[in-house]
């Protein structure tokens, strides 16, 4: 059986890693238990949650200088930039460009009316940047239980933003009972629906120069949908991410899957890697769960991108045991359940258990508790890494994208070296 580059996990880290491997000609196979983080987050590229006037680049430099164990410190600023650049290039090619910079975070309103910092956002969202002036209108639909214009607007007003809110009337459709974000995305894929909504928005627009809508403006060509609505209303239109499943995240998943598969990689969803085999320093086999017998994979190199606790890559039980569910790598985690949580859900420092993960060397290769290399042909990326709590830092998408890209490139080199020596 041929040795392969295997990527475990189809979140942003796994997909970026697979992309790097694909582009290096390694034709990776992505194995994932299911879909995940793409469908849970808003789809912006958050590098670090600085606010105010602080330069993001300076903040990153500080973070790297003061936290040598932080995944970003292992990448360095230029690799971070390289990952972001590649991500943006892929999105650009797929006609879903991201705008922004590493100089200043833009400030986008959330569905709760909070002002949220992000470095890059799809152009369907950037008109929401609060650093611009002008009156805002937040519009939504009574039928969508996952977005409420009055709540978002009330909180924005409280923070000094000039904003109004409105509920729009849903044009008649075949759906009458149950509306999800996907239902609305399908609606917005239809130009006639956009016409009807655009007309309503124009009527209620008033002095507003920018109109925020829930992030459901289509799956097929959201950029065209936004352009359409802008033409119809004469205002700038922007999307506001809301509860999962995330439509912007689905767009990312679709783009990545297409890009990777078109270039010779494969994405196999529904295959849980649950067992591994190796020798002293190399991982040689992975086994994914299937009906009646496991599927065996011979490994040239492997990327562990299983998403930590959210992604299911880290398992825990009532005795306080914490484990890596795919490769059984040693984990860095607080000992004993007593130390897992702060007493308040919104504690500023977050909860220690959520920083659990695999400790790595600067090549992102796994280390055991004594600091010894476990496998030389494995790299770890994304939320499976120890050393940070990306939710708390507001770096979920940035950290997964950049570590995934970096790890994929490192593995591609390792694979080429390995194939040369074994031939």
């Amino acid at each position: 059986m041929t040795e392969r580059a295997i990527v475990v996990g189809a979140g942003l880290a796994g997909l970026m890693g697979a992309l790097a491997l694909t582009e290096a000609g390694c034709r990776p196979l992505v194995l994932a238990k299911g879909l995940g983080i793409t469908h849970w987050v808003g789809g912006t590229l958050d590098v670090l949650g600085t606010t105010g006037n602080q330069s993001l680049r300076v903040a990153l430099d500080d973070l790297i200088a003061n936290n040598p164990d932080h995944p970003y410190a292992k990448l360095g600023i230029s690799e971070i930039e390289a990952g972001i650049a590649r991500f943006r290039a892929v999105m650009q090619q797929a006609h879903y460009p991201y705008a922004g910079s590493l100089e200043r975070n833009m400030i986008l309103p959330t569905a709760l009316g909070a002002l949220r910092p992000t470095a890059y956002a799809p152009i369907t969202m950037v008109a929401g940047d609060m650093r611009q002036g002008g009156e805002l209108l937040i519009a939504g639909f009574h039928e969508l239980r996952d977005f409420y214009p009055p709540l978002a607007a009330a909180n924005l007003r409280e923070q000094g933003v000039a904003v109004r809110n409105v509920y729009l009337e849903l044009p008649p459709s075949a759906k009458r009972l149950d509306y999800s974000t996907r239902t609305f995305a399908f609606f917005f894929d239809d130009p006639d629906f956009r016409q009807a909504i655009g007309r309503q928005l124009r009527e209620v627009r008033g002095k507003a120069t920018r109109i925020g809508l829930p992030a459901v403006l289509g799956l097929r060509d959201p950029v065209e949908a936004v352009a359409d609505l802008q033409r119809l209303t004469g205002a700038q239109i922007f999307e506001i991410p809301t509860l999962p499943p995330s439509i912007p995240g689905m767009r990312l998943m679709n783009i990545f899957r297409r890009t990777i598969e078109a270039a010779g990689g494969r994405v196999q969803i529904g295959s849980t890697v649950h067992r591994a085999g190796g020798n002293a320093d190399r991982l040689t086999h992975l086994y994914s769960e299937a009906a009646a017998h496991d599927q065996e994979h011979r490994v040239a190199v492997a990327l562990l991108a299983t998403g930590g606790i959210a992604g299911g890559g880290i398992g825990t039980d009532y005795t306080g045991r914490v484990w890596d569910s795919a490769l059984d790598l040693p984990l860095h985690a607080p000992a004993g359940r007593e130390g897992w949580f702060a007493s308040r859900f919104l504690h500023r420092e977050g909860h220690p258990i959520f920083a659990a993960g695999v400790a790595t060397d600067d090549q992102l290769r796994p280390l055991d508790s004594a600091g010894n290399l476990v496998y030389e042909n494995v790299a770890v990326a994304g939320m499976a890494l120890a050393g940070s709590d990306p939710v708390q830092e507001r770096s979920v998408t940035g950290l997964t994208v950049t570590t995934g890209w970096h790890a994929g490139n490192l593995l591609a080199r390792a694979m080429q070296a390995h194939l040369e020596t074994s031939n």
Partner: protein
Amino acid sequence: MTYIIPTDHIELSLEQSLDHCIKCNICTSACPVSAVTDKFPGPKYVGPQAQRFRQPRQPTPDESVDYCSGCRVCNQVCPTGVRIAELNGRARAKIVQQKGLPLRNRILGHADILGMLGSGPLAPLANTMLSLAPVRYLTEQVMGIARHAPLPAFSTYTFRSWFKRRARKQGRPSILSNRKVVYFHGCATNYYEPWVGKAAVEVLEHNGFEVILAEQNCCGLPLLSNGAFSQAHNYHQGNLRKLVPYVKQGIPVVGTSTSCTLTLKEEAPELLGLHDADVNLLAEHTYDIFEFLRIEHAHGRLRTDFKPLDRTLPYHAPVSCGRTASGDLRSMCWNWCPVCT
């Protein structure tokens, strides 16, 4: 008819898998049924969510679960491992237990009987009949099969008759080998698309296998999908009787219908709560043909003297591929097959 599902130990318990649901709605956003009809509230709702409100000794509270088509896309995309389609299958079985099987499902559930009636020399007649608008109108009225839904065409001969005819012509099996496989053709190949079976026999024989046409039943999937668990159980027992003796001689069972092989491997045992030695034996030694060839290839035994095909072929991966150890066709063979790179 009541089929009592035997006790599930926690490791095998489908019900317990509902505990993994984190309500994220990924399944619902991938469901092809809820995309097109309001009548199906989606896999999360009818699956792990509704399951918490079902009590085996009380009447079934919900029927919208019956719109689940059993395609298992939800299982495939679920990030936490909830056996949604199976939960739905069992919930439907309870409805059937209480209210009986509707006529349509009683008929469509028996792919084998339908096939037997329609295929053979009279197939053209049957196919013509089934293409007539008045007939389709009647079937819609009486059975509830939409008159515009495409129906598969019966074959003028069955796969089994072809195989036997060929054996008679050749006097004995075309290849005698110590490497044997039992071919599980399933109803679709036997009654509708015998050329699939012919191709499979050719490929297997080309690779030096003696193909055995064992007696076999319908795998029971149509009955399982319609909630007729008692009858599906009978079918599975029949397949165990007919196939396990071969398995015990070390002969694997290979099928070309992924859903049939998946039923033998996993669906029937899981849904019916069957976990005894024979059931496990058959499950472990049943292979989808791609999975089988992939393993042959892994051991360097597959003949890869392929001829390149100068055309583009559309390929629709069966959903059930996700659960077989081959993955879908493309990820099975993409790094060695010249046809689909």
